[in-house]
């Protein structure tokens, strides 16, 4: 019982991290149909920036993560304004290749600057250790860090949902996702909406990357290594569907965590088999987008 609870917490926190990293890509793919293979590299950039802020600049963990997210957003915005203009103009295969190229460059820079080793951001004391409930037998013990992760990502997901459903910008974004040309016709500046969303997506990915270093440790090949996971979340969830991505990420986190614990011999095999099966049954994802 206690094992199951901590496994569930682990699975959910893992899934939430994946959601944070993947959500920006869902929108990028949904709105502009841009195959952006650089997206997971932004999570890595966020992680490295937070690491640098904590270790070298001496900021506290709680301050470093939002600052890293802001810096990553600036970088994302700058790139969206310049390099991605070329990406938008290419066909699907060209976009794929160009964004792989950008990922290669970022990977090489990360390797050159931060070194090839695998690194974690050291957790603050307040996030270390476990909370234990119950007596000696059958005590439920959960890691404080995991609970913090679930809380932060849940808050962010809620904010995202409110922003999408309750604000004018959210309405514009949903219109752009559902029907870009119609949205343009009614006077929505779709490219601008996209710019903002792209930037926000980079920020969320950076938070996910910075908070999740205990599960997805930082390394130069981060962007390529976890790209498959992120793409799976987006494809399984359905293009442009935030709800789908959320469900897919949670499912992925839970299946992976439980699978690795109960069937360790199979390792990551289960998850990819599930994905393959799901894509065969529902090629447009869990929540098929309306367009």
């Amino acid at each position, binding site marked *: 019982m206690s094992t199951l609870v901590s496994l569930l917490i682990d699975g959910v926190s893992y899934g939430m991290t994946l959601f944070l990293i993947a959500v920006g890509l869902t929108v990028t*793919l949904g709105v502009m*149909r841009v*195959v952006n293979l650089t997206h997971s590299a932004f999570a890595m950039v966020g992680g490295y920036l937070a690491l640098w802020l904590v270790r070298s600049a001496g900021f506290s963990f709680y301050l470093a993560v939002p600052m890293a997210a802001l810096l990553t957003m600036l970088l994302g915005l700058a790139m969206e304004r310049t*390099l991605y203009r*070329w990406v938008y103009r*290419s*066909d*699907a*295969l*060209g976009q*794929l*290749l*160009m964004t*792989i*190229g*950008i*990922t*290669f*460059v970022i*990977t*090489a*820079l990360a*390797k*050159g600057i931060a070194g090839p080793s695998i690194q974690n951001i050291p957790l603050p004391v307040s996030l270390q250790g476990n909370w234990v409930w119950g007596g000696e037998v059958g005590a439920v013990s959960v890691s404080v860090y995991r609970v913090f992760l679930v809380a932060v990502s849940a808050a962010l997901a809620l904010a995202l949902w409110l922003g999408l459903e309750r604000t004018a910008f959210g309405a514009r974004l949903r219109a752009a996702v559902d029907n870009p040309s119609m949205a343009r016709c009614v006077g929505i500046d779709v490219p601008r909406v996209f710019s903002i969303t792209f930037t926000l997506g980079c920020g969320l990915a950076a938070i996910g990357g910075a908070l999740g270093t205990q599960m997805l440790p930082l390394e130069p090949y981060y962007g*390529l290594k976890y*790209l*498959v996971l992120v*793409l*799976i979340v*987006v*494809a399984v969830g359905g*293009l442009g569907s935030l709800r789908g991505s959320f469900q897919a990420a949670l499912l992925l986190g839970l299946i992976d965590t439980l699978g690795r614990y109960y069937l360790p*011999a*199979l*390792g*990551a*095999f289960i998850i*990819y*088999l599930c*994905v*393959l099966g799901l*894509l*065969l049954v529902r*090629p*447009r994802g869990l929540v098929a987008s309306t367009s």
Partner: protein
Amino acid sequence: MTSVVSPVSTAAPAAAAVPGPGSADRGVVAASFLLQRWRWADLALLVLLLCGYLFAERHLALATSVLVAIVFALSLDLAQGYGGIETLGHAAFFGVGAYAAALYATHVSPEPLSGLAVAGACAAVVGALTAFAVVRAHGLTQIMLTLAVATVLYELANVFKGITGGDDGLGGFDVAPLFGRFAFDLFGHTGYWYAAGVLLVVYALCKALVNTPFGLVVQGIRENPVRMRMLGVPVVPRLVTLYAVAAGVAGIAGGLAAQVNRVVGMDALSFTASANVLVMLALGGTGRLYGAFFGAIVFVLLSDRAAVINPTYWLAALGVLLILVVRFAPRGLSGGLKGLR
């Protein structure tokens, strides 16, 4: 949605290569039917193989890996350049072929040619099995399906460590002399000529294939699947056949790699291998077969040199090269050369 997207996606690079917006469409069609004929360039390839041997006397292992990469890139060109199937998991078939050849050599017979046939056949079967799902999907789903297939196979190889050797790889198998006469020597002379011979046969078959009515039909499907269906072409069966053939060729490349190197590692199935071959073909240019030669030669030689000089910034240089090629020469280096003429 795809019916709208695909003609646009193929016309866009053409517009960059052919001056004048009005001639763009006709240019693509004319080019794709003209390019397939045998011409003096094919003779040059033969000379290139000979020169490769003479000049690379001391780097035969590298030269051989270039040849293997060319075969692999040719197979991707069949699927992607001619059939318009977008894939991020082509290493699946390369890996299947490599493991099939290694296992065949270990357990059945060390004879190389039959081993190569087994490798190709195994990969073609896997290709045919997955093709039914892959060719029906489009865009991101198609990419994801190919990626998922490759990843499942990678994890399978990891799970069945007893058979595949897991991370240690599969080695220690012997390859019998070619035709019973030419032993595979330490310096790779036999290996080079073996790979060169396989490459010539594969290239000739690919060239013949794309000129058959079948080859023209799949190019038609690439340009406009809806119109081809209206003409009465069974689109899905044709694409399945093409995908299986491409998978078989990739399997032959994998088998070749296994036999020449005497070792197969998990990296044969990895995402990196899939991405690399995609990059090679993009550098060389798709839908013209000899683009595979350009791309593989440039990619393998550059990465070998760069690995000596500075492996870190090689990746950055490759990334920049990729961005620039897609931006300024969307039809690859071979397309870019053609544009200059």
